[in-house]
């Protein structure tokens, strides 16, 4: 039970920070300190359609549609990794995996069920996080600035394409490691590599080097989907009872 509490605590903390604390901080900053010349310069870089809106609204939507999506990607990566690690290596650590293998299930069935469970949970966490974030942001924007924020099409690409594919990549990376890893922490390390490109995106976005449009996100999403599919296929063929019990 304590293990489960620990698991849910780690599943909750990052989404809470990324979808409530961070966006709220941004909004409050925009509301109380918008007169920075640098910010005006950043706004000038934005597409024409966004510049027509008021400064506050423009900034708020800049945060919502350009900054937060990249931060948001950490959520599916993290929740998929936690779930996959505890369902593969966690079972190995607690010696319950071998019991499952002695049941009349093929390795493929066990593999599929575990990947699917990790994936679905990661999606659930991502969707709930998005909804919570929108509710919190709309409330804050409404109360502080008296306006409604409109999420761009990028969010659709993120929720329906990028988050699922990146979750699957995280799951398969963890699972690949799980055959050799002896502890949950050890297996989670492999997913850290996934966070690196996301951090680069965050840096790119915030310094204005790179403004990720919906098109770039779409292309990125398609590449990730392809990668996830290839990883999943090669991973599934590699598993036997022997590799799992090492």
């Amino acid at each position, binding site marked *: *039970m304590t293990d*489960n509490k620990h698991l849910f605590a780690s599943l909750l903390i990052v989404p809470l920070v990324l979808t409530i604390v961070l966006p709220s901080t941004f909004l409050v900053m925009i509301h109380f300190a918008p007169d920075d010349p640098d910010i005006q310069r950043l706004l000038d870089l934005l597409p024409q359609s966004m510049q027509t809106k008021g400064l506050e609204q423009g900034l708020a939507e800049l945060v919502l549609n350009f900054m937060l999506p990249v931060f948001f990607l950490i959520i599916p990566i993290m929740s998929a990794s936690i779930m996959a690690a505890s369902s593969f290596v966690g079972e190995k650590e607690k*010696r*319950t995996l*071998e019991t499952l293998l*002695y049941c*009349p299930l093929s390795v493929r069935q066990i593999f599929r069920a575990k990947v699917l469970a990790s994936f679905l949970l990661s999606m659930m966490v991502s969707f709930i996080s998005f909804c919570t974030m929108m509710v919190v942001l709309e409330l804050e924007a409404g109360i502080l600035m008296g306006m409604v924020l409109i999420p761009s099409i990028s969010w659709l690409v993120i929720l329906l394409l990028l988050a699922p594919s990146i979750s699957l990549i995280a799951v398969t990376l963890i699972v690949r490691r799980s055959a050799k890893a002896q502890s949950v922490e050890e297996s989670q390390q492999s997913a850290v590599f996934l966070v690196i490109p996301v951090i680069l995106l965050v840096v790119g976005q915030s310094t204005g080097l790179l403004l990720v449009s919906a098109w770039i996100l779409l292309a990125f999403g398609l590449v990730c989907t392809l990668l996830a599919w290839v990883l999943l296929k090669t991973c599934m063929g590699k598993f036997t*009872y*022997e590799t799992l019990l090492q």
Partner: protein
Amino acid sequence: METVVLQSLSKTYSGGKLAVRQVSLSLNQGEVFGFLGPNGAGKTTTVKLLNGMLSPTEGSCQVLGINPAKEPEKVHRVSGVLTEHAQMYDNMTGTQNLIFYASLFDIPSREARSRTESLLKRLGLENAGAKKLSAYSTGMRQRLSLARALIHQPRVLFLDEPTSGLDPESAQNVNQLIRDLAYREGITVFLCTHQLRYAQEICTRYGLIEDGTMLAEGTLEELRHDVLSDTVLKIRAEIMPAILPFRKSGENQYELDIHSDSEIPHLVRQIVEGGGDVYDVTAQKPSLEDIYFALTAKGKGEAM
């Protein structure tokens, strides 16, 4: 009917360790076969090979005619496995665990519930079914694991150190259950242990393995015949005639190795006629332990 067959079964691990070397065996239905040897002898590897967890490097094996290397799921349907590496979920109760595993064997839930109840009762866990596994003692876990291995009514049971961690009373209870399963229900039991005295209590036939090699196989009588046939005659007597070849093993205690029980009356008569008073006569046949040590000593002697 042959239920478990091993033909020149060998397993070399990828690291190069030869765990099982050319083991051939055949078990009949309803037999309690003791697979005996020290830790690291290859017992657990053999169980894994028989359940398709490992694939053999050479030779083959069958469980009820099914090749575990090719169709492990089919073997799992007819076999139950108890090993210390196969644990259950700590955050679920005993009953929940058993019902979960029953569902993996496609047992309908009503049937699963009734089997769970009767197994818990049979293993003395009727009051522990509603408790979470995290509150279980080692012995309770071991008994629940046995219940889990039996939930799908297997025809072959693989038990790896089934009484480890059990108190004497539960151990006796488990032994009785194993005997019942074999004699009354015709289940074949493949029992691995390093406790030779325990094995002698419960098994009908034995295989002795060391460093992956089978040293000997057979019933206790067969092993005595093949390996160590000498009986030790122990006599408690006052005054032992000096002409008799007995060695003194304690106060008024004498010992002599004999080859056949027919020598006993003559020896006793000689003591009595020589003026000795006999209080106790015991013909001690070699135990499984004596046979095992004789075998390993022989192996080492030959190696030198």
